[in-house]
């Protein structure tokens, strides 16, 4: 278990070192990609929330 945990920690540090070594332009493109993903998550949440509202409305017999 400890070995697995150490491996995870070691991989994480390696990945972070690789990210730090990127050029600024590359890092900024990652920021763009992260924001796009975040917007997709927000849209999914909104869609899910509206579906839930529909369900509640139907349960209440309002539709």
């Amino acid at each position, binding site marked *: 278990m400890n070995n697995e945990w150490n491996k995870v920690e070691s991989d994480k540090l390696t990945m*972070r070192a690789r*990210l*730090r070594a*990127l050029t*600024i*332009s590359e*890092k*900024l493109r*990652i*920021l*763009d*990609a*992260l*924001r*796009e993903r*975040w917007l997709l998550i927000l849209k999914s949440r909104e869609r899910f929330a509206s579906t839930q509202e529909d369900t509640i409305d139907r349960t209440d017999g309002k539709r």
Partner: protein
Amino acid sequence: MRIQSVFEELAVLQQEGLIDSYAIGGAVGATFYLEPFSTVDVDVFLDMQVQPGRILADPTPLLRRLAERGHRCEGEHVLIGGWPVQFLGPGNPLVHEALEQAAEFDVEGVLVRVFRAEHLAAIALQTGRAKDKARLLQFLEQGAVGMQIFEGILDRHHLRPQWAQFKQVFFGEEA
């Protein structure tokens, strides 16, 4: 989605004389020194007059020009290249100094002003939220700050007590 558009737009505003000096702070600023951080907006600090007790600058002429250039406002932000951008005044002497002494980076042919790592770290210490403390730890652990410069900033801006407390909590050092 293109954060580079924000820098290009800032360069245009500078050329047009609408903004004097500016600097990028927050998570986007930290990305210049550390690994990329997920963030919801871009903090742009401007050397503008701010009403006492407020940190938001009055960006009316700036907003008007940005609207003319096709960027729309969303609450406190202006959407540029798909990114919400917040324009802020210096707010306190530390941020004012950070703005004055900002570093310049050439990003794909555009000159971008960014707070220095030591100022970003000191601002994180001063702000003191959980995410700021986490970022300060990253700056320190990754050796991204010059300690002599950082400690000079702590002295000038009376941040020694916060620094002692931070070291005690995170490094187990006695104050």
